[in-house]
C-alpha cells in the first residue's frame, strides 16, 4: 500500500473524461491513451457501431423474406389452350429496394441476399459479439473491480484496440467493395472458389484473422491482470463473478484463437496460391476446414456467452440486494464451461462426419449443458428473499433468464443425434443461436450498459424511456425468433432467399417482429444520446453496489482510486454491509443479518 502512495499522489485528479482544452488535443489524448477506461469506452462505441451495421443487414435479410419466391410467371390461356399472355413479376425485395435508392447493382436478388446475410453474420460475430462485453465493459471494469489502476499491460491494450480497428477496416473495405457471399463460416470449397478474380473474400478472411490477434492480446492481458493485480485482501473467491467469467473467457480466447488464426491463414493461402489443403480437386479435405474452424468457433460461442453470464450475476445480486446463491458453483461452472467447450466442436458438423465421432460429440455436448443449467438455477435461487427493484438493468437481467433458458433448452434437441438430423442447418438452429447469442449476450450487454452507464459517463439515463425500449426489445425479439423454431421443425432450411409458399405466414410474423426489435434499439439509442447531452449527474453509487467500482467516483478519476482500496467485505454481502457512499439511514440492515449460514 505504502509503495503505491509513495509515487502516486493522485489526490487532486479530475475525472478520466476531462481532458486538455481543444478538440485536437482531446483527440490526440484519446488516440494515444493507455488508460483502460478510455480504451474501454472507445471499444464500446466501436462495437455499438458494428452492432448497428450488423443490425441493419439483419433488417435487410428479414425484409427480403417477406415474400417467398422471386420469380412468378402468370400465364393466361384462352379456351383453345393457347397462351395469349405471359407476365413475369419479380418479388426481389432487396433488389427493388436498392434500385429504388438509385443503386443499380449488377447482382441478382439472391446474390444481394447472400451478401446481406454474410455481412450480418461476419460483422456480428467477428466485429461485434466477440469483442463486445470483454473489450468494452471488461476493459473498463475488470481493473476497477480488482482494485487496480490499470490492466497489466496498458500499452498492449492500446495495441489490441488498434489491431481491432485495423482488422475492422479490412472487413469494412471488403463490404464497400461489394461484400462477400461465403457465409460467416467461410466453408470450403465454396469460399475458395466463389467470386474468383476478386479480393473481397481474401479481405474479409484477413479481417477475421487480424481481429483474432486483438482478441488474443486482450485475453492475455486480462488473465495476467487477474493473476497479478488483485487488490490487497482480495482472494480468488472474493472476486466478483463478472471477473470470474471474464477470466474464463480470456483463457478460451488465448487457447482457441490461434487455431482459427492458422485456419484462416491456410484459407488465404488456398485462395491466393491454390495450395490445395482444403481443395478436394487436389486431394485436400474440405471437412478438415470445418473441424479446424469449429475447434475455434465453438469455444468462441462461450467467449460470447460467459461474460454475459458474469454480467447477469452482478445485475441480479445488486438489484435484488442479495448475496449470490452458490458463488463457488457459478465460479467453477464458468471454468467448467471453458474446459468442456474445447471438446464439443463436432456438433456443428454432425451431418458431415462418421457415426462414431457423431455419437462421441453428442455425448460431450450434453456435458456442457450441465454447468449452464447450474448457473440458471443459482440465479433464480438468488432472487429468493431478495429486495427486487424492476429498473432497466434488472429487467434485462430477468429477461436474460427468460430468453437464455429458451435458448439453452432448445439446444437439447440439437445435441440429440436423432432429432439433429432433421433440425441441423434449419431455421431451428437459427432461432436457437439467436436466443443464446442475442437473447443471452446482447440482452446481458444491454443490461450491463444500463447498469454501469452512470459509472462510465457520470450521467443517469432516463428510466421510463429505457423501460419502453426494453419492453419493445423483449416483444420484438420473441416475435422475431420464436416463430423461427416452428419454421425449422416444419422444414425451412437456413440461408434461403426463396422458400416454398407454406412458410410465408411465419416468415412475415418474424419480419414484423424484427421491426419492433429495431424500434426498441432506436429507443435505447435515443435514451443514451439524451443521457449524454442532458442526463442528470449520477451519484457515485446509484444502485448500492458493493464491488469496488462503486467506491470510485462517477465517472472514475484518471487512476480510478484516490487510495489503493483494501477489500473488507465480499462483493455480495448486501445483507450485512452498507454500500459505499450510502448513509446507513437509507440502508436498513436486518437484525438477523450475519447469522445466516455461509
Amino acid at each position: 500500500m505504502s509503495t503505491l502512495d509513495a509515487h502516486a499522489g493522485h489526490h487532486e485528479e479530475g475525472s478520466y473524461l476531462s481532458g486538455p482544452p481543444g478538440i485536437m488535443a482531446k483527440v490526440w489524448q484519446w488516440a494515444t491513451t493507455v488508460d483502460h477506461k478510455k480504451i474501454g469506452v472507445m471499444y464500446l462505441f466501436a462495437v455499438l457501431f458494428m452492432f448497428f451495421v450488423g443490425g441493419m443487414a439483419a433488417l435487410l435479410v428479414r425484409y427480403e423474406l417477406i415474400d417467398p419466391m422471386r420469380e412468378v410467371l402468370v400465364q393466361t390461356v384462352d379456351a383453345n389452350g393457347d397462351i395469349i399472355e405471359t407476365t413475369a413479376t419479380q418479388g426481389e425485395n432487396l433488389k427493388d429496394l436498392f434500385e429504388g435508392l438509385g443503386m443499380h447493382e449488377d447482382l441478382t436478388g439472391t446474390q444481394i441476399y447472400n451478401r446481406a446475410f454474410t455481412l450480418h453474420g461476419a460483422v456480428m460475430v467477428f466485429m461485434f459479439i466477440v469483442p463486445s462485453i470483454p473489450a468494452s465493459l471488461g476493459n473498463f471494469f475488470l481493473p476497477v473491480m480488482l482494485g487496480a489502476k490499470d490492466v497489466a499491460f496498458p500499452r498492449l491494450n492500446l495495441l489490441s484496440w488498434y489491431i481491432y480497428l485495423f482488422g475492422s477496416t479490412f472487413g469494412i473495405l471488403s463490404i464497400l467493395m461489394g461484400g462477400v457471399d461465403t457465409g460467416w463460416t467461410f466453408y470450403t470449397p465454396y469460399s475458395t472458389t466463389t467470386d474468383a478474380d476478386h479480393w473481397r473474400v481474401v479481405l474479409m478472411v484477413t479481417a477475421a484473422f487480424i481481429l483474432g490477434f486483438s482478441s488474443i492480446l486482450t485475453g492475455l492481458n486480462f488473465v495476467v491482470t487477474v493473476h497479478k493485480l488483485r487488490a490487497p485482501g482480495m482472494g480468488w473467491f472474493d472476486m466478483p463473478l463478472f471477473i470470474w467469467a471474464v477470466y474464463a473467457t480470456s483463457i478460451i480466447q488465448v487457447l482457441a484463437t490461434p487455431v482459427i488464426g492458422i485456419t484462416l491463414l491456410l484459407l488465404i493461402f488456398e485462395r491466393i496460391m491454390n495450395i490445395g489443403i482444403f481443395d478436394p480437386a487436389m486431394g485436400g479435405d474440405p471437412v478438415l476446414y470445418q473441424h479446424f474452424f469449429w475447434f475455434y468457433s465453438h469455444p468462441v460461442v462461450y467467449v460470447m456467452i460467459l461474460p454475459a453470464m458474469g454480467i447477469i450475476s452482478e445485475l441480479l445480486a445488486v438489484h435484488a440486494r442479495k448475496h449470490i446463491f452458490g458463488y463457488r458453483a457459478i465460479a467453477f461452472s464458468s471454468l467448467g464451461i471453458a474446459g468442456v467447450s474445447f471438446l464439443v466442436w463436432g456438433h456443428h458438423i454432425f451431418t458431415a462426419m462418421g457415426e462414431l465421432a457423431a455419437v462421441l460429440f453428442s455425448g460431450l455436448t450434453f456435458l456442457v449443458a450441465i454447468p449452464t443449467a447450474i448457473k440458471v438455477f443459482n440465479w433464480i435461487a438468488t432472487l429468493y428473499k431478495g429486495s427486487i427493484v424492476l429498473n432497466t438493468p434488472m429487467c434485462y437481467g430477468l429477461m436474460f433468464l427468460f430468453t437464455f433458458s429458451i435458448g439453452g433448452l432448445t439446444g437439447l434437441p440439437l445435441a440429440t443425434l436423432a432429432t439433429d438430423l432433421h433440425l441441423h442447418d434449419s431455421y431451428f438452429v437459427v432461432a436457437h443461436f439467436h436466443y443464446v447469442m442475442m437473447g443471452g449476450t446482447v440482452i446481458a450487454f444491454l443490461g450491463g450498459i444500463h447498469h454501469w452507464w452512470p459509472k462510465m459517463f457520470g450521467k443517469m439515463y432516463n428510466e421510463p424511456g429505457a423501460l419502453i425500449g426494453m419492453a419493445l426489445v423483449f416483444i420484438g425479439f420473441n416475435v422475431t425468433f420464436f416463430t423461427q423454431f416452428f419454421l425449422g421443425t416444419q422444414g425451412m432450411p437456413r440461408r434461403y432467399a426463396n422458400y416454398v409458399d407454406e412458410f410465408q405466414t411465419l416468415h412475415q410474423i418474424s419480419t414484423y417482429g424484427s421491426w419492433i426489435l429495431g424500434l426498441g434499439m432506436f429507443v435505447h439509442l435515443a435514451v443514451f444520446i439524451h443521457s449524454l447531452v442532458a442526463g442528470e449527474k449520477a451519484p457515485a453509487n446509484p444502485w448500492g453496489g458493493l464491488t469496488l467500482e462503486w467506491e470510485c467516483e462517477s465517472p472514475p478519476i484518471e487512476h480510478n482510486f484516490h487510495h489503493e482500496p483494501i477489500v473488507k467485505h465480499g462483493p455480495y454481502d448486501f445483507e450485512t454491509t452498507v454500500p459505499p457512499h450510502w448513509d446507513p439511514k437509507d440502508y436498513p440492515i436486518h437484525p438477523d443479518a450475519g447469522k445466516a449460514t455461509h
Partner: protein
Amino acid sequence: MSTMTDTNPTDVPQSILKSPKHWRNRIAGHHWRTGDEEFDAAKLGMWLFLTTEVLLFAGIFCGYAVFRMMYPEAWANGSHYLDWRFGAANTAVLLLSSWTAANAVRCAQLDKQFWLRVNIIITIACAALFIFIKLKFEYMVKLGEGKAPGTFFSYPYAQDPHEPLWWSLYYIGTGIHAAHVIIGAALFGVVLYYAKRYQAYGPTQYTLVENAALYWHLVDLVWIFLFPLLYLIH
C-alpha cells in the same frame, strides 16, 4: 557458469547492484506495486503468448498428421526429396543460438554488458545463417526444380498425385517457422539496441531479454518437431 535463467538471482554480488547503470534507475509502471510483480506479470504474459504460438503450430501439425494418414505414399516420397543434412545443419544452428540466448539472460543477470551484447549478436547471426541455408540450399533449389506448393507444382518426376499437397504443407510449416525466426531476430535486435545505447538490462531489470529468449526457445522447439517430421520420418 550455469546457463540457468533464474527469475530471482540471489547470487549477484552487492557491488554489481550498486554500479551506475541505466537499469538501476528503472521504476515499475505506475499501476504496479513493485518491479518484481511487473517482471512476474510480463513473464506470465509471455508464457501465455507462447501457448498461443504452440496452438498455432498445432494446426499445421494436425494437418500434417491427417494428410499423412490419407496419403502415406506422397508423404514418404516427400521426405525423400528433402536432404536431411541441411535440416541437421539448421538444427545445430538453432540449438547453438538457443544456448547463446540463454547465456544472454545470464549475462544480464550478472551485469556483464559486453558478453550480453556478444551473445545477442551470435543469436542474431545464427538466425541469419538459418534463413540463408533455408533459402539458398532448400527453397531456391526446390522451387527451381518445380517442387512448389499446390497448383504451382511442376516437378516432372512426381510419383504420387498428392505430392503437391506435401509441398504445400512443407512450405507453410517451414515458412511460418521462418517468419518466427525473423521476428525473433528482430526482437533481439531491439534488445541489442537498448543494451548498447542505454545499458538498459541488468540484475534487477532484464524482462525483455528474458522474454526474447523465451520466444527464441519456442522457435527452436518448433523446429525440433518440424525437423524429424519433415526430414527424417519416411
